[in-house]
């Protein structure tokens, strides 16, 4: 039987996080009363003229630079003409043949830690459309509605469209790719990238071909995916559908298919042939953009470590697991906190354990982010140093961390001030051992009768007696000597 592989390309729309809209000064804000954030420009009242938002242009350039895209010296806006009531102008301002960013590569990772690459075709800047609600059908389906309600608050919000090359081979890779875009845009601060609020929307072009073939099969464009999970399910379902069509001797037809979350399948969306004749032309209301090379170089030099670079560093230099590395990378502030701690001498794995373990738990309990807590990363590094030098044991370290969280301060000072340093002096540990043995004659008898698993209890008692200060390894050795 022929084996097939999937060939997938992703187009995704990302709402930029600017204060104002793309071509007018209305606020760029999610929600609110319908038709409250509108003005003559975004309502296309006669005579109103658009002026581009500089910040949005810079954000797209930064997004492009993050993926190593080329930033052409010349770019322009075009009109994409179509009749649809979600744009009062009857066209959308977009970019046709001269986008702000061209090419580039998105590097991403999968749950097993493997890293992959997907080339980008382009990133361009456009304006979002208004939001229409299809009403009067009873089932919310557009095809059955008798009229629509339109809210133009979203019309004119800056929208960045990223188009990938067909380098993706599975649903899992598609999600990995989207995760990488999301992390990168969050870190760049260019978008909130929330699929549930519509600030990230994506379509997938899916086709199949026999394994080993270099040709591209006929693709179907999948729409209406509202979460990363639905992207994954929709792509899997579509791959299975196409394989079944071909296996039954049929042919895949080029079409747009909508994902039905409840049915778990894609269905054909009737589309008129001329719907795609957008008759693009340069927008005469807007002047071209000449991108200053010094601006590009400045933005490039300000680019921080990207999520994938961080991920590889955490895995390679500190040996963190995929889950720990991902967790840190997913919260840039936490990753910066971790980096500062490691930079101050806190070993990688121990720092990750503290940051993602005790500190994250305290953060949850107190609703205070770790990076805003009174535990400075340098103090955490000092605490780790105290554990590594065996000055304190891990039990005391946990107690100290809680006190640092509540009051702050240097763990070294706390240890000195309160005499918490672990004692490895055989004389004083021996004194605690003797006391414990004298206090538990029955346990001692059990041990001598062969129940050696009581050793843990005895070490625990020595720790308790010493208020946590005895070196537990030394306590174990001394107990064994005396009982043996």
């Amino acid at each position: 039987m022929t084996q097939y592989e999937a060939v997938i390309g992703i187009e995704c729309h990302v709402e930029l996080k600017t204060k104002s809209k793309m071509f007018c000064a209305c606020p760029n804000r999610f929600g609110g009363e319908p038709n409250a954030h509108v003005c003559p420009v975004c309502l296309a009242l006669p005579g109103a003229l658009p002026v581009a938002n500089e910040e949005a242009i810079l954000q797209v350039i930064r997004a492009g630079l993050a993926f190593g895209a080329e930033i052409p010296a010349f770019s322009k806006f075009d009109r994409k003409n179509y009749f649809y009531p979600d744009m009062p102008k009857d066209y959308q301002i977009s970019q046709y043949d001269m986008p702000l960013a061209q090419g580039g590569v998105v590097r991403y990772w999968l749950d097993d830690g493997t890293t992959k690459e997907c080339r980008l075709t382009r990133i361009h800047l456009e304006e979002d459309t208004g939001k229409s609600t299809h009403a009067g059908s009873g089932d919310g389906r557009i095809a059955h509605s008798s009229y629509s309600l339109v809210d133009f608050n979203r019309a004119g919000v800056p929208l960045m469209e990223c188009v990938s090359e067909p380098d993706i081979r599975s649903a899992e890779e598609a999600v990995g790719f989207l995760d990488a875009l999301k992390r990168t845009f969050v870190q760049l601060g260019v978008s909130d990238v929330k699929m549930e609020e519509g600030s990230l929307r994506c379509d997938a072009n899916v086709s199949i071909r026999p394994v080993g073939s270099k040709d591209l099969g006929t693709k179907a464009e999948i729409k209406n995916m509202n979460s990363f999970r639905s992207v994954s399910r929709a792509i899997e379902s579509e791959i299975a559908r196409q394989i079944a069509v071909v296996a039954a001797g049929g042919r895949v037809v080029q079409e747009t298919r909508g994902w039905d979350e409840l049915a778990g399948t894609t269905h054909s969306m009737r589309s008129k042939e001329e719907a795609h004749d957008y008759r693009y032309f340069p927008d005469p209301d807007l002047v071209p953009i000449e991108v200053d090379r010094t601006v590009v170089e400045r933005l490039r030099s300000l680019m921080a470590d990207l999520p994938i670079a961080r991920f590889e560093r955490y895995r390679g230099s500190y040996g963190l697991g995929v889950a720990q590395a991902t967790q840190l990378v997913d919260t840039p502030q936490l990753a910066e906190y971790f980096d500062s701690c490691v930079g101050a001498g806190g070993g990688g794995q121990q720092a990750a354990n503290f940051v993602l373990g005790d500190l994250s738990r305290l953060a949850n309990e107190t609703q205070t982010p770790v990076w805003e807590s009174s535990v400075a990363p340098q103090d955490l590094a000092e605490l780790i140093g105290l554990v590594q030098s065996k000055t304190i044991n891990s039990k005391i370290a946990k107690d100290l961390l809680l006190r640092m969280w509540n009051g702050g301060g240097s763990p070294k000072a706390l240890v000195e001030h309160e005499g918490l340093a672990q004692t490895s002096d055989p004389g004083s540990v021996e004194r605690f051992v003797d006391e414990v043995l004298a206090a538990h004659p029955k346990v001692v008898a059990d041990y001598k009768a062969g129940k050696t698993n009581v050793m843990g209890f005895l070490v625990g008692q020595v720790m308790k007696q010493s208020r946590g200060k005895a070196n537990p390894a030394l306590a174990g050795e001394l107990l064994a000597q005396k009982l043996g």
Partner: protein
Amino acid sequence: MSSDNIDIRYVAKLARIELTDDEVERFGRQLGDLLEHVKTLHDLDTAAVPATAQVVESRNVARADAVGRCLEHETVMQMAPQRQGAFFRVPRIISEES
């Protein structure tokens, strides 16, 4: 260019204009004449003229990302041919979302 090369019915459909057979014939002839006129540009030597996207020479006109005033909601809604609550109400849409 003669009117035979222009698909008047297709152009009319894209523009959502309904044309009678007479109008298709008449507008076809008129558009053909227009294109014939513009065709004189083919006679010019444009080899040394760079391609352009704009006739004005200005570049990089942008505004700072600051919020200004919006229109009053009621002012906006008074312009609506049809409304329902705070929404514009529009006829049913047949083709899928772009």
